[in-house]
């Protein structure tokens, strides 16, 4: 069975030109440091076209890097062993990202109940409420604060699709993000 959370219309269509990066688990021995190097690389790649304006370049490079880093961090932290696929594309209005990986069944259902909480309401209010709740009860393993920061502070629209994986004890998770790219300076 497939389950969808978040904004359904932001999935990357196959018609667009998509850049794809595949992080293999075995040879890379995926670690925390891969999140930074991979997200910096993607941010550099996509911000290049904004080089004529230093302010735009800094802003776009940072926003792309931040969103990509948070979603790869989540994939590295919560995935079942296996590869992570990162797909990215950009048009004149927004940068789109898709991160795919397997998660185990238990992890998937915990994540789904978190998503049910953090995708309904104003992300700015939800972020502050969850920071307060998390400070009062720091033992919660998955706070959702990273995802709420993307929605609240970066204007990110997010969506998640859970579907059956090839292996029966796993779920295939696709995480979609879209952030507005505004050219503010000429």
């Amino acid at each position, binding site marked *: 069975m497939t389950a969808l959370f978040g904004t359904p219309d932001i999935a990357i269509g196959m018609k667009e030109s998509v850049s794809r990066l595949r992080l293999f688990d075995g040879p890379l021995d995926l670690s925390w440091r891969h*999140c*930074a190097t991979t997200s910096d690389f993607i941010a550099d790649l996509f911000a290049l076209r904004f080089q004529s304006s230093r302010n735009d370049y800094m802003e776009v490079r940072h926003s792309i890097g*931040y969103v990509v880093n948070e979603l790869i961090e989540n994939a590295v932290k919560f995935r079942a062993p296996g590869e992570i696929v990162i797909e990215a594309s950009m048009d004149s209005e927004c940068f789109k990202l898709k991160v795919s990986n397997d998660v185990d069944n238990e992890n998937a259902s915990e994540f789904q109940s978190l998503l049910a909480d953090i995708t309904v309401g104003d992300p700015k209010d939800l972020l*502050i409420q969850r*920071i307060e709740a998390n400070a009062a009860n*720091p033992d919660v393993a998955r706070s959702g*604060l990273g995802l709420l*920061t993307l929605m609240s*502070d970066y204007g990110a629209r997010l969506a998640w699709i859970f579907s059956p994986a090839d292996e029966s004890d796993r779920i295939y998770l696709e995480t979609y993000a879209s952030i507005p790219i505004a050219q503010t300076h000429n």
Partner: protein
Amino acid sequence: MEIKTDDYRVWIEGSDIFFDGAMRLASSEAGAPVMALANSVLSSNPSIITLNLKDLHFLNSSGINLLAKFTIEVRKHPEVRLVVRGTPDIPWQSKSLPNLKKLHPALVLLMN
């Protein structure tokens, strides 16, 4: 007192706490030494604590949560004034630091 890794450095000068580099914490446990350092400043009962973030180029959401938790700690001590110094030149700071003021309206946020 100082915490130094390949990627970031945190240190204390009086009741000022300085951050430098790119801090990408894997979890709140990974931030525990920084939190302990900040709490040690708070427990010395200063009248003012300054977080100087002007050279902190990157902070992931676990790190932002650490700043938020410390802000909530300081909020419990109304006699302690909390000043946060950032810069509009670093995008995460202009986007996310105003949230600290929502948590603790008496906090002084200086972005210049």
